[in-house]
């Protein structure tokens, strides 16, 4: 297979393909796609090592630890890592690196990634799902909350884009 790291799938065809994956998740598993549930479970696993009794005492964590939906997401995310790895390898994009715009240092980029992740983690717990679980899956299911969330995400991104231009441009 030809490996060109700058060649991507046509976005619309990729979208249709992603839609078919999502549809199969709906029809086979009765669940949408997601990501943030899995990362929460990883956090819970880490907490279990650091402070063993703490999770059971914190209701939201205990709930997530016992949720079958979250278990599905953990295994789905294992698949995502596998699929992402194979796709990156076969397209020549598999490389240990830090991606950033031309005008920002690696340290600043990593700090922004970490703090952006922190905000998203808080937000994803607040919204009962991230862009995958809430916007993509819930959006396809025509949930009102999902659509409100989706517009807000784009709103938040565009509102802050001008301040973050040095990171990307």
């Amino acid at each position, binding site marked *: 297979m030809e490996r060109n790291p700058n060649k*991507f799938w046509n976005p619309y065809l990729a979208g249709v393909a992603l839609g078919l994956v999502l549809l199969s998740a709906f029809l086979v598993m009765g669940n949408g796609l997601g990501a943030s549930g899995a990362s929460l479970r990883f956090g819970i696993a880490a907490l279990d090592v650091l402070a063993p009794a703490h999770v059971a005492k914190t209701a939201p964590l205990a709930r997530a630890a016992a949720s079958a939906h979250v278990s599905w997401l953990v295994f789905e995310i294992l698949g995502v890592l596998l699929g992402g790895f194979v796709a990156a390898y076969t397209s020549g994009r598999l490389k240990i690196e830090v991606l950033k715009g031309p005008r920002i240092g690696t340290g600043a980029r990593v700090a922004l990634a970490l703090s952006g992740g922190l*905000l998203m983690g808080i937000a994803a717990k*607040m919204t009962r799902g991230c862009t995958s679980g809430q916007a993509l899956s819930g959006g396809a299911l025509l949930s009102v909350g999902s659509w409100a969330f989706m517009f807000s995400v784009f709103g938040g991104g565009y509102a*802050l884009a001008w301040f973050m231009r040095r990171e990307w441009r």
Partner: protein
Amino acid sequence: MTFPVLPAHELGLVVAVLIGFGFGFVLERAGFGRAPKLAAQFYGTDMTVFKVMFSAIVTAMLGLVLASTVGLADFKVVADHAASATFLLPMVAGGFLLGAGFIMSGYCPGTSFVAMASGKLDGLYTILGVIVGQVAWSEVEWRPGFAWFHNAGNFGNYYLWELFHLPAKAGPVVVALAVTAMAVGCFLGAEKLEKVLSGRADPVAMATPAGKPGRLVFAGFAAVVLVGVAGLALPSSTQARIREAPAIGQLDLARRVFDEPWRLRIVDLRALEACATRRIPGAECVPADKLGSLGLAYANPSRDLVLVGEGDLLELPPAAAAYTGRVFTLQGGWKGWETFALVQPAPLAAGALPADVELYRLRSGIRSAMTGMKAAPPPPTPVAAPAGAPRKAGGGCSG
């Protein structure tokens, strides 16, 4: 209903990995493992995020609507199972927060996993941040002062078709078609915007043009909308074809035969000889198999069509259902009419209720008018007629 399949636990986890594999593979190939490409969405130079997400939503949504239409699944059942309840306030606030985190980190939680899998350290740090953030909010979300916000605006499972007050059955289809039409419009707009904005020399702009496959997807979505709208229009006429005609009672019909015969069109579907011998006044004798020759679909709909069969009509003939005005079937058919209007009602015992007396009088009157026989003398009126006002001479034979 056949779907969702909901496989047993172990098999389900294998399927989860397979589905996740597809998810991750497609995301990576679309370019979602690269922060600069994702961030370019918010500078208008590369709308890949929007295009991929929206066409994925439309595809999955249409697929599920189609599966529901052919009876393989039920849209609402799947949605109730897979979608979370709506908590409006935290979802809008959290949405803004997540958007802010998105432009800072360059990823959303899902794509950061793909980035990490392809070796991007910024993706790894994003995941670490996400985990810390989630655990932190889990610590506080249920505590006083936070719980009200975390659960504010709880609408339960709440869907767009309910928001727009559409019927539960057709609602998902209508909204899905509207979303699809909107998507095609937005895609064309996104292509235009990219062209305008990447016209400026921009080193990071690396949008993949829609090209032929993209146009194919547009055309496919647009075709679905057209077919869907046509399909929505058709069922309403097929519904008319299988519509239930309300029954009209004998007394109501008799009243209308006397009071406003010009607003009735009574069609007697019995055999020609039977109808020719005796029929409801003004009825046309049209045997059921000749009904099509009336051209009811194009007839003036101002009169109410009343169908008279031998007994109750079990199903509405299609030719009559095509009538655009109101259609009734006569309750009990001709047999019911015969016993109601053409047979002298049994005399009432003394002390009968006034309502029964009234009905008796009406039925006797109807019978005498229909059969040309003199009415039996009415039973004595229970209440004395008010004296004074001269009684209007009217109607009966005894007047």
